[in-house]
């Protein structure tokens, strides 16, 4: 009953509706043709204002991307196309988020403009450790924003690791590490093949004790695969899983002043997964991923062959 009276304006014919905004008060005066034309003009102006308003809000999505047309604001999941193509093709459904066994993928918010709803990885919080082997996020992607050409971790190009702060690196300082890598409050997980092949376990359940800190090298999924292959033990029984080159290693460096120390050195095999950044036990990560640069190592023949078929 209330609805019927509330919306008296809606109840009348559309033309009358325009002509009489307050039908109860000035019904007879409002019905004049001049009044009707005036209301039509007002409605037109309001419609223009609405168009300008909503379009302007939608274009605000450009603001955070200013100067970043081709550069990434955040690390993207494996197989992500170049940033421009990625933003164009991602349908923002989050299926990649749902399939990731280590929950590394999150969805962007308003602050990244048109990136709203697109997936990213915050490696320091939880990196992609390829524990799914088969790149579930790539398989889940309905649009190929995470390219379906990608089959193996070795051909992933998420970025490249860089020793950002050598001064705080434990290895450089000649120090070892004993304890829980990221402290007891850290919730990140990693897969340890020797403990459980299928289920990642919390980092806090896996303490380390090393004379010289080499956690970044130990945890590196590419290094692990490389070593397995050297032993003839192919990951998932697939020889194609084998990385052609090493990704990271501790090297003895001799400075110009004759000081000798160990240092993590990133090799061409690095795909930028971010596990080194995640596990680095210093307050701030000494080693971080530059997700706007990738290795010079060429993609595998398998990848290139499949890529030809796709284009």
């Amino acid at each position, binding site marked *: 009953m209330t609805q019927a009276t509330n919306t008296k304006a809606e109840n009348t014919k*559309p033309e009358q509706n325009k002509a009489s905004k307050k039908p109860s008060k000035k019904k007879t005066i409002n019905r004049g043709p001049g009044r009707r034309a005036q209301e039509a003009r007002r409605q037109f102006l309001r419609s223009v204002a609405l168009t300008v308003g909503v379009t302007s809000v939608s274009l605000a999505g450009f603001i955070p991307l200013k100067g970043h047309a081709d550069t990434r604001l955040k690390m993207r999941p494996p197989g992500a196309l170049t940033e421009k193509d990625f933003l164009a093709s991602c349908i923002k459904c*989050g299926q990649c988020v749902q399939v990731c066994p280590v929950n590394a993928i999150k969805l962007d918010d308003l602050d990244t403009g048109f990136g709203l709803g697109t997936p990213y990885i915050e490696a320091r919080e939880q990196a992609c450790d390829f524990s799914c082997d088969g790149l579930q996020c790539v398989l889940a992607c*309905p*649009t190929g924003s995470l390219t379906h050409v990608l089959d193996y971790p070795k051909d992933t190009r998420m970025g490249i690791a860089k020793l950002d702060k050598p001064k705080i690196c434990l290895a450089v300082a000649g120090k070892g590490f004993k304890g829980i890598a990221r402290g007891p409050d850290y919730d990140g997980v990693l897969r340890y093949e020797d403990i459980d092949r299928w289920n990642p376990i919390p980092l806090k359940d896996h303490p380390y004790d090393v004379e010289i800190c080499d956690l970044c090298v130990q945890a590196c999924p590419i290094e692990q695969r490389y070593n397995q292959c050297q032993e003839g033990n192919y990951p998932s029984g697939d020889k194609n899983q084998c990385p052609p080159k090493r990704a990271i290693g501790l090297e003895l460096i001799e400075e110009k002043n004759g000081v000798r120390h160990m240092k993590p050195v990133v090799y061409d095999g690095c795909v930028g997964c971010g596990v080194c950044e995640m596990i680095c036990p210093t307050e701030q990560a000494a080693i971080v991923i530059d997700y706007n640069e990738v290795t010079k190592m060429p993609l595998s023949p398998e990848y290139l062959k499949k890529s030809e078929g796709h284009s």
Partner: protein
Amino acid sequence: MNRSLESLLQLLGRTPRKPKKDELSPEVQKIYFYKKGEKVTKAQLEALHDEHHKNSKNKWRKRRWLTLIAVNLLFVVSYYLDIQLLEGALTASRFMGFHMADLNSALQVMLAHKQVLINLMIGITTIFILWFILGGRTFCSWVCPYHLLAEWAEKVHLWLAARGLAKNYTFHRGVRTVFYIIFALLALLTGYTVYEFISPTGILSRALIYGPTLALAWVAFLLLFEIFLSRRAWCRYVCPIGITYGLVGIFSPVRVTYDMTDCKHEGDCRNVCLVPHVLDVTIKNRSTDVEIGIGADCTRCGLCVDACPTNSLNFEFKGLTHKSSKPEVERSLMPEKKEEQS
């Protein structure tokens, strides 16, 4: 075909026009003529209205809200329990592994990416067939989570408006078509899926599944705008998803049909309708045929079916529902019932 074209034009913003007398079928003319003689008083109408609402159970609204909540909850539950029943969000998903893609999102993505994404084709086809059968904009009122919030906001709006605390500024409905073109062009020219940045459907669906985001502030703003300034503004005047699904539903077998025989033309249906122009035929002398299908802009929400005191509006599945399946008894009793009361 002519009616489908008219339905399309109305979807795009045309105001329904009053048919000329010779356009009305002879049978309709006869009924309107008869109705002229049968004066219905305000008291009779109110009695009819009250009688109907005493018995009405809001059947369709209940079914619809239940469906809408169930579909959206299925996404959430599927993710939280990791049962992989319905993965993804409303923009694109997998139902038991089978691809589905929102038609509007898929369109935006393909325009921005300038590629026909083969991977999306299965999802697009599935969803196209699904909503073609179920009625196009049925998506809006039976699935879209923003629709439900907007429906609740509408109640607040009406309550406030009745007390002079809220306005209902109207816009030209054609503006939605303008938005449709603008967002298509923006996607094509900028290479970004610009509409997705402000789509309350996507924002809400993702927020439900993956947790709240700052983007919800935009949805809140839209709801406040609708509450205080313009009734159901987003769905009526902006949302391109509505046009996409409206186009899909033009030839859909599922629709609301109007039978003018017993209609009292009191307008209860238009009062509750999200898109009242589709019910223009329920105004006296506007229906050209005794039975007429409601146009493509209709979201098949069923509010009018629930509201109609004379059973003149009903859901129809073309080819499955027959005229005889309508409650004949009720129909013929209606006017008598009313006379008894008066």
